[in-house]
Every structure is written in C-alpha cells, then in structure tokens.
C-alpha cells in the first residue's frame, strides 16, 4: 500500500516536471519558412532521349565490344555473353550487322539490380 503510494508520488512528480513548458528557439520558425520557400528537390526529370535509351545503350555497348572486345567467354563454345548495367531501361536489345539490326533476335534479359544480359553465338570477325 505504502509502496504503491510511493510509486504514485514519484511518477506524478516526474510527470509534473516533464509537463513544464519548454521554450524552443524562435529562429526555428524562420528556418522552417526559409526551407519551405525553396522548391523541394525533384527526382531527375525523364531525359528526352529516354525512349531511345535502350538502343543507344545497346549500340554503345556493341561499339565498345567491337573496339575493345571486353566481353567474357560464355559457357558454350563461340557463345559470347554481353552484359549491360541499365537500371532505368524498360527493355534492351543487342543489335548489329550480325543479326540484321533486328532487336527481336537478341533481346537482353533483365537479371537483377538493373543488369541486362544475353548470350549470342558469334563467329570470329569484326561486327558493327
């Protein structure tokens, strides 16, 4: 009984202390108003070339591949794996004169984290 009363007293005293008004620096008002007057950071606007992005990416990748030949050997003989990191792309295809520039013949597949990949057979030579 006394212990319960003791607890009530202590907690009530704590509550009274915590309920005391607190004064926050009024400069905060100006900081808030200044902040809201600034336009919020917008996500990057969609680039005007977004529609052609997959094609540009694929073409750039292919050009780089032809010039520098940085690809790795695929798992099958004469098979080459092409990999592109394009998190913003909705679809990617690998095109060149080896497939008559036909995107339907070498679509790249989304793996994960914006990584696209495809494996195509290629005979030794130079391609555009």
């Amino acid at each position, binding site marked *: 009984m006394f212990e319960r009363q003791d607890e009530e007293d202590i907690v009530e005293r704590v509550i009274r*202390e915590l309920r005391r008004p607190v004064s926050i620096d009024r400069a905060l008002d100006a900081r808030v108003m200044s*902040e809201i007057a600034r336009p*919020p950071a917008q996500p990057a606007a969609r680039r005007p070339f977004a529609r052609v992005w997959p094609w540009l990416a694929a073409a750039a990748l292919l050009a780089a591949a032809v010039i520098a030949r940085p690809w790795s050997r695929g798992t099958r003989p004469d098979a080459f794996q092409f990999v592109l990191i394009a998190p913003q792309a909705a679809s990617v295809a690998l095109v060149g004169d080896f497939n008559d520039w036909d995107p339907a013949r070498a679509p790249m597949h989304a793996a994960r984290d914006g990584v696209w990949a495809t494996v195509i057979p290629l005979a030794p030579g130079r391609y555009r």
Partner: protein
Amino acid sequence: MVEAGDAELVRRIRAGDIGAYAALVARYRDRLGRYALHMIGDREDAEEALQDAFVRAYRSLARCDDPERFGAWLYGILVNRCRTTGARAARRRRVFVRDDDAINGAAHPSQADRVEWADVVDRALARLAPEYREAFLLKHVEDLEYEEIAELTGAGVSALKMRVKRAREQLQRFVKEAEHV
C-alpha cells in the same frame, strides 16, 4: 482579434498563402518541441527533428485529410522523425548536460534543487527503452488518449498500456536509484 483556427490556416496555405504556415509553426513549436526534447534528449537533435517535421508536414499538406486535426496529424509526423533522429542519436553517446549557467547561477537553494531534480528526471527518462519513453510521454505528458497514441504510433492499445505501465515502474526505480546515489 480571434486567432484563425488550424483548419482556416490550412485552407489559406492550400490557397497559396505560404505565410499562414508561420502561424501554425508558432502555434505548435513549443509544445511539439517539448515532446521532441524529452524523446531525443539533445536540444540540437530535437530542434532538427522538429524543423524536419514542420517542413515535411508542409510538403505533404495535401495528405492532411482533416485540417481540423492538423495538430494530431503533425504529431504523427514528429513521432516518426523522433524515432529516426532518436535512433541516430542513440548511436552517439547520449549525454545530458544541463545548462551550466542555470546550475551555477542557481542562487537560491530551492532553485538548485529544482535543477538537480530536472536532471534526475532527464536521466531516468533517458534510461527507458524508446518505445516505453514514447508511450509514456504521449500518454502522461502530452495527455493523449490511448486510441490517439495507437493511431500515431501504429501500436495496439493493449501493447501501449503495457509500455506505459512498464515505463512507470522503471521510472520509479531509476529515480530512486538516482536519489540514493
């Protein structure tokens, strides 16, 4: 002159009167600041959380469904900001340093006692788990109903009652320990 109510101020802001927001900030600054200060324990972090809550509230004002209850809605945003800021602050060493001028300048013994008591309370509060501290402050200091707290925190009413009960028990123990040191 009668001050405009929250709903009226929200209506003006939505109509493009950004300046009306200053009245809302001034109205809620100290009350919400008290919660942030007790919840986080560090004035600088608390003011940062408060400022962030005001800015976020302004930017999402379109989602305030009931402008009459702007204050409650703002509380919800602040509770979240305090959770984020509090978690970050907890990774640093939580230190309560009372204003030295207030302590040294306490000319009257009773004033010195009060500063000391406030220190005991701060330290006891700081030892509570954040979810206990949050429930205790919202219930007993900010005087909200359990249903309102449930809405703000996403916790169930029975869980909240348990947290408040535990907070009371622990506060009692921590204060006793501090007073017997």
